[in-house]
């Protein structure tokens, strides 16, 4: 096991996939030559390693990038394309939602579209609402698309390898703020199965669910409650579609309480789905109101104190857990 950053872990996964399988290629804006010169960038150095035939810098054309992935994947390749920032997924959304997610179905199961889309996400780097806007709920709502979101270097590598070799379209969200975060990463090719959550901590009073960077907010919030004698199950979803419902429900049935944490807007966010599932399928075990800790229903503001305000905080997680317990 080596210690490395999440960006390096992703880089390792891409390297392994490309070394092991000629069908894998990368495309996107600056995936080859980048304005960044940072080994913590997932695509750093890959052009030098694999050459311009397999590492394709594209024009600024998100629909074409996604279309490229759709068309190349049905031909048997395993495209890994990048959408630079989450809000730009809008420009690729017809290709992803109406095509990547539906063409297999429309073919009656004859065709497959084994493509991966890497999307950079992140709130907190002061770029404002046209760069910061987490839209995982859009993807999760669209049939035919899988959706994964790692929070550790270990999972980042294993999930990306699973995504690339999954027979269906997978969207992988990468929290940019975590690119520099370090952790233990096993050598070689290993896979984190898509659809398996990770129980990060065990407790008795409440189930706290998060994914990506929000996990760390959740952890901090829970930690703050230790002094009050409150302990929680903490679930890192890792895979948003398919969702590990068994993990979610067994924890909620045990603790009787659910708090969901994400950085996306609250209204119709992914957290709503988790809340709905619990209220539907674990109702009799619920002991307190389900709580969502999410961003208010506003665009991500540019000014630092406002952006801070936008982001769910450890305090709000702690408060939500208390509210879930006290009702």
């Amino acid at each position: 096991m080596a210690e490395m950053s999440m960006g390096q872990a992703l880089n390792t996964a891409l390297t392994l996939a490309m070394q092991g399988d000629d069908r894998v290629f990368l495309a996107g804006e600056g995936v080859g030559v980048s304005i960044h010169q940072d080994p913590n960038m997932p695509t750093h150095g890959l052009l030098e390693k694999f050459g311009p035939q397999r590492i394709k810098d594209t024009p600024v054309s998100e629909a074409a990038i996604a279309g490229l992935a759709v068309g190349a994947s049905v031909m048997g390749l395993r495209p890994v394309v990048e959408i630079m920032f989450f809000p730009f997924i809008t420009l690729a959304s017809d290709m992803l939602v109406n095509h990547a997610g539906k063409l297999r179905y429309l073919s009656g199961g004859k065709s497959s579209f084994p493509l991966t889309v890497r999307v950079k996400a992140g709130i907190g780097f002061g770029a404002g609402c046209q760069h910061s806007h987490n839209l995982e709920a859009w993807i999760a709502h669209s049939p035919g698309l899988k959706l994964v979101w790692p929070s550790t270097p270990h999972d980042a590598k294993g999930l990306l390898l699973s995504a690339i070799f999954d027979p269906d379209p997978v969207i992988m969200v990468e929290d940019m703020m975590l690119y520099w975060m370090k952790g233990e990463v096993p050598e070689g090719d290993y896979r984190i199965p898509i659809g398996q959550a990770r129980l990060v901590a065990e407790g008795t009073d409440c189930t706290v669910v998060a994914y990506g960077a929000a996990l760390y907010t959740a952890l901090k919030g829970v930690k703050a409650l230790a002094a009050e004698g409150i302990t929680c199950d903490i679930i890192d979803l890792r895979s948003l579609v398919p969702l590990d419902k068994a993990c979610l429900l067994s924890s909620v049935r045990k603790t009787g309480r659910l708090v969901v944490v994400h950085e996306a807007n609250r209204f119709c966010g992914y957290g709503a789905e988790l809340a709905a599932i619990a209220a539907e399928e674990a109702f009799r075990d619920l002991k307190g109101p389900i709580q969502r800790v999410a961003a208010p229903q506003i665009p991500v503001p540019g000014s630092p104190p406002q952006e801070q305000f936008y982001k769910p905080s450890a305090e709000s997680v702690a408060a939500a857990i208390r509210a879930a317990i006290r009702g």
Partner: protein
Amino acid sequence: MALQPIPADMQQHLLAQMVLIRRFEEKIINLCQKEGCLPGMQILAVGQEAVAVGIVAALEPNDIIVSNHRSHGHLLARGANPDALMAEIMGKVSGVGHGKAGTLHLSVPEVNALMTSTVVGAGPPMAAGAAFAQQYCATGGVTAVFFGDGAAAEGSVHEAMNLASLWKLPLLFVCENNCWAGAQKPSQHCSTQDISKRGEAYDMPGVRVDGNDVEQVYDLARRMIAHCRSGQGPALIEAKTYRMRGHGEKDRQHYVDKSEIEYWAKLCPVARYRQKLLSGGVISETQLLKMERQAIERVEAAVAFAEKSAYPPPESALSDVWTAPENA
């Protein structure tokens, strides 16, 4: 440029395909009268047969086609099984998409028609992906993508043209300019009346052709496809043709000048070519009758097949979303 001579058996093949397509679509017109027989909107390419047939005839079996909402001609020309097409059009389980698709997005992987989209303009970016795979794997293959004059206004088409030319992808853009996009004429939706000129903006050849003359289309397609296959990058063909029916079968063409339809009726690609081959002695009256009869029989057999087929069980709607069901 003078046409390259076309062998007689190819000429007969071109005509036979146009006749089959015409019969197939006329049958659909017919079936539309039967209440409840055909779900959805029926969108026909009557009058445009020469484009489908001329382009596809110039392709190799390994080449790929990407089609749109007006796909019957493309697919039949490509050799799709009429039974499975008709069954899909009727929503039957024996259809090419086991009923999941219906008529608007008929794809037939068996004949390398892998992606058909009814989202206007969606074909070209996906076709760029297919052409990229051909280039990446050095298959020697070419992709041809069909789209309409209306589609030429979509941003996706622009992005695909730029990318294809930049990367020198073996991609033939076929713009079927059938003089209408819904109820709008090109003068109402397109800022240039010569879409083929777009080629220059992307540094690729762009040529307009009489889309109602199958030999012209075939000849140009051969040259353009050779260009694409040679590694010189994409090419654009604008085939000027005409949508003889409404946008869909419920459209009564109230916005179309009768005289326009009459004008184009005289240029019917099927009648014109039939006449040409007859008078050129390439085909006899007897052969022609046989060809017509075979087309009719093929279409009737397809209808019989489709009518006999069952609808898919309702809950089968749940399958085919994922390749690996354990992940569902």
